[in-house]
């Protein structure tokens, strides 16, 4: 119990520290990219230092859902299911932010909001859809095996996506004119900026995850108590 409390404090402090640091690196430390390097909107490019980490952390969160789902099916301990659910919700939050900020930058840089030809965008979008569906499934099924069904769907959903990423290479070779990456050349400062952003968001993810799990546990405690009182 005591260790848990301390860990929480440590995570909170680290989260705040890295979030502040990431804002500093994104706005002040990292140099502006230059138009000569092929960027048509160099100022707007600074969205990247949060857009890319948000996308990364959402992948991390969905990966956690996948792993927890496998663990849950193996030994059906409730805690794995709780973590999977919490992680899916937070993953959707981060993914939404990444998906919303992407087009804002895209409009400034490319002149269009979205490039469907870009596999990275498409796959992020599909992942987002899949985990929205996951949350709907969790809300919709009222049976005792809800957790098990959600775990199966989480596995299907996440397993398909990396695989379609691999297979998308084949499509790209079929469409030679539309290969577009969302990162240009990267200097080392840009790399550091992105790294700090990823670390900051990862800590934020951990903090949120713990909070979400705590909420879930409280809710089930309340259910228990209600049953107890109802039973007497």
């Amino acid at each position, binding site marked *: 119990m005591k260790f848990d409390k301390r860990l929480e404090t440590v995570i909170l402090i680290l989260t705040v520290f890295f979030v502040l640091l990431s804002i500093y690196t994104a706005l002040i430390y990292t140099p502006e990219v230059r138009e000569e390097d092929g960027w048509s909107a160099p100022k707007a490019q600074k969205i990247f230092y949060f857009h890319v980490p948000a996308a990364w952390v959402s992948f991390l969160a969905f990966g956690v859902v996948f792993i927890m789902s496998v663990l849950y*099916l193996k030994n059906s301990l409730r805690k794995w299911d709780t973590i999977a659910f919490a992680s899916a919700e937070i993953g959707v939050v981060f993914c939404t932010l990444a998906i919303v900020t992407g087009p804002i930058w895209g409009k400034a840089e490319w002149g269009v909001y979205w490039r469907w030809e870009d596999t990275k965008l*498409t*796959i992020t979008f*599909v992942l987002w*859809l*899949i985990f*929205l*569906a996951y949350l*709907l*499934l969790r809300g*919709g*099924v*009222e*049976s*005792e*095996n*809800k957790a*098990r*069904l959600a*775990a*199966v*769907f989480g*596995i*299907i*959903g996440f*397993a*398909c*996506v990396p*695989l*379609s990423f691999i*297979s*998308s290479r*084949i*499509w790209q*070779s*079929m469409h030679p004119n539309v290969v577009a990456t969302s990162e240009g050349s990267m200097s080392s400062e840009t790399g550091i900026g992105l790294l700090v952003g990823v670390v900051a968001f990862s800590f934020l993810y951990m903090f949120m995850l713990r909070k979400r799990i705590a909420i879930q546990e409280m809710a089930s405690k309340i259910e228990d108590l209600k049953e107890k009182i109802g039973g007497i």
Partner: protein
Amino acid sequence: MSQGLAIAIKDIKTEFRTKEMVFSMLVFSLFVMVAFYFAFYFYSLSSEALEPLVSPILWVTFFFAGMFGLLTSFSKEKDRGSLEGLMLCPMDRSAIYFGKVLSNYFLILLVDIFALIFFVLFFSYDFNGNLLPVLVVVFLGTFCFVVSGTLISGIAVNAQDIRGVLIPILLIPIILLTVLMPSVNATSKALEGDIIDAIPELRILGVFAVIYIAIAYLLFDFVLEE
């Protein structure tokens, strides 16, 4: 495996006795075609303008009509309680899945072929001798769709009230990249006459069919168990 086959035969037999599902799927696919026809009516499409639209129209019809079939394949058994009867039989639970895959595949393919005929009639389309390669793509793409759809249908059947909406909600994001896109691309290429060009897409479909079957084989126990 023989039990899976027995389930499929039983399903097809009951289906053809009542004909409710096949009939509504056929009518639905007809209506989708009609809807497409009237949606494009204003443009009075020439055959050249129609060319890029052929495979998207076909696959959207296949998928939406097919989803009807998936909707009832488990819910009928569940509502009548006969799913428990199947689960009491001494066999692997995945045999139920394979049986359902076979019967769904048969019924949905049937509807696909009728939808193709409707398409030809409405848009007076001429396959120019490319019908065979298109059929190959349709057979493989539909198989991949059925394999993933039957798994999702097994999951969605547990949501009593909203299972009707849950199947498309769960299924569409899953098949977007793994079935829909390769099938449409491959069909377009087959329509141009070079099936060889479509081999990468066909390979993707094959790989994902295997992946979905493997997932179902591993996890279908968890889907059915109470």
